[in-house]
């Protein structure tokens, strides 16, 4: 019969009310865990992906830094020539101009992402480790190499036709093995047909592969100095940029889940306050028998904390289960685990739940510990 035992007895004495409150906290915590798990999942996938990307530097038009793969093609052939000249002088391994085109809607099932590569360059230069499962690895003139997941999803096989526009069509000449990375969802085609479809001679980005021993930061700054109007970003810079963007989106998502958390907190406060009002005489008896104010205060705060901790733990578990289910779907659809319940997210969720309980318990606890003994005992 320690103090925690007393608290537990009281919660169990009103099982339905305690359970309903627990459910409120559970749902609030689960929704917060889920919201924030998307940020954690994106972060994890992105960094895994970026750490696998071959080229150490991406050159993009100024103002489209970050993850500007899909930016409007603005790098002109003249700028490319200047880059190649500067790259040769710096002794880089390869300089690959590339172009992106997205076809389809919001549904990953019906969308196609094309990446244009110069003649003779295969996807393995940009995505180390990819291998052809069938046919060729390097796209040919009029021939595309298809990522493993796209091929499976759209039932493409060697020789299948691909239409980029009414005028431009290609045939599948190679299918890649699934590697669990971004390349699984891409279709690699020669640059020329993409430029024809987009009506431009420009490129979206130029990817730079370095020789061993070359320092990415130094090469990037030298390229920027050589060709004005372009931004050369190293993988490290992209990661930092992505981290910044993810932090902002974390805050936004936490803001949204805060609504559920506040409702959960008010539920706990309401339950504990009701329980305090019902037990005023009981607290009076405890004080009459010799309990100090601090004892009553602790009793009530612990009740709120216990409700919040139990609800928070169960909410965390529920969030984990739902996150797992979401990942099963997204892994199947786009090959990425979008949601992740990481240890730091779990710890954060439990701390938020505890803080919630503490805040919800303070006012009722203060109230309970300050009632005059004679009033509490009804002896006025």
């Amino acid at each position: 019969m320690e103090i925690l035992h007393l608290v537990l007895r009281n919660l169990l004495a009103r099982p339905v009310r305690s359970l309903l409150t627990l459910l409120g906290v559970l749902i609030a915590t689960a929704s917060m865990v889920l919201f924030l798990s998307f940020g954690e999942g994106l972060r994890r996938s992105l960094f895994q992906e970026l750490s696998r990307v071959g080229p150490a530097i991406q050159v993009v038009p100024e103002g489209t830094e970050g993850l500007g793969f899909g930016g409007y093609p603005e790098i002109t052939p003249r700028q490319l020539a200047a880059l190649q000249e500067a790259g040769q002088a710096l002794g880089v391994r390869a300089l690959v101009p590339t172009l992106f085109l997205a076809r389809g809607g919001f549904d990953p099932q019906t969308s196609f992402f094309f990446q244009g590569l110069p003649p003779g360059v295969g996807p393995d230069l940009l995505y180390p480790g990819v291998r052809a499962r069938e046919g060729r690895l390097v796209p040919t003139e009029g021939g595309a190499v298809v990522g493993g997941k796209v091929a499976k999803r759209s039932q493409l096989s060697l020789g299948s036709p691909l239409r980029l526009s009414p005028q431009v069509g290609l045939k599948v000449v190679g299918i890649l093995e699934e590697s669990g990375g971004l390349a699984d969802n891409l279709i690699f085609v020669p640059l020329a047909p993409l430029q024809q479809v987009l009506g431009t001679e420009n490129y979206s980005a130029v990817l730079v592969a370095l020789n061993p021993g070359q320092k990415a930061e130094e090469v990037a700054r030298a390229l920027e100095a050589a060709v004005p109007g372009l931004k050369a970003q190293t993988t490290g810079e992209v990661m930092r940029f992505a981290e910044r963007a993810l932090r902002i989106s974390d805050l936004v998502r936490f803001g949204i889940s805060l609504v559920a958390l506040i409702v959960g907190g008010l539920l706990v406060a309401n339950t504990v306050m009701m329980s305090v009002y019902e037990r005023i005489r009981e607290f009076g008896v405890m004080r009459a028998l010799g309990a100090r104010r601090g004892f009553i205060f602790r009793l009530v705060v612990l009740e709120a904390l216990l409700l919040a901790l139990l609800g928070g733990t169960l909410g965390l578990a529920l969030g984990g289960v739902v996150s797992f289910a979401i990942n099963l779907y997204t892994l199947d659809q786009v090959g990425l685990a979008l949601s992740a319940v990481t240890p730091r997210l779990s710890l954060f969720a439990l701390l938020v739940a505890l803080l919630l309980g503490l805040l919800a318990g303070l006012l009722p606890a203060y109230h309970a510990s300050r009632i005059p003994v004679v009033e509490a005992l009804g002896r006025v």
Partner: protein
Amino acid sequence: MLRAENLSKRYRQGEKEVVALLGFTYAFPRGATAVVGPSGSGKTTLLNLLAGFDLPSEGGVYLDGLALHQLPEDERARVRLKHMGFVFQQWNLIPTLTAWENVAFPLLLAGRPRKERQEQAFALLERVGLAHRLHHLPSRLSGGEQQRVALARALALDPPVLFADEPTGNLDAESREQVAALLFEAGKERTLILVTHDLELAARAERILYLKGGRLAREEVVQPAG
């Protein structure tokens, strides 16, 4: 020894001032002292002040020379825990705790280890004839049984002062007799202050104080029966 000196309590009721107790002075000796009087005579107010539940408007309460009325709330609680036991009319057991846990509650407040709490609570409940009710919740006990649990709880820390406020008010004849016998037995070796309407019960005390209109009207020394 518990001593009240010129004890007065005044309340404000709107514009009116109500005098609940006026100039009460008495030194309670060892043994049972009954406090009787009609409703509104100041019995409950007197008990509230003696126990330190409330503070007097004038005068003071001294327990072995310690000025109880000058202590802060938490200190008064500490004094109650160590030196006073209480039996109320409505039993006032903690509803979520079993009989033995209720008896052990003051021992928990005093920081006694679990084993000691349990042993002592079991022994006290046996002493009041409830060895077969140790693990029952108050809701499963009769009024008389609840009052006996309350008495066992009041004796848990063996306090020198025992307060009983209408302890038999809600009980049937048989339970009343059982509780009264246990109460006066416990009162032999300590200061028992018994507030009651029941003159028959009061007559079993060694002294009776008659309150009227908030004043001590008279003191009667009774020859205890038997």
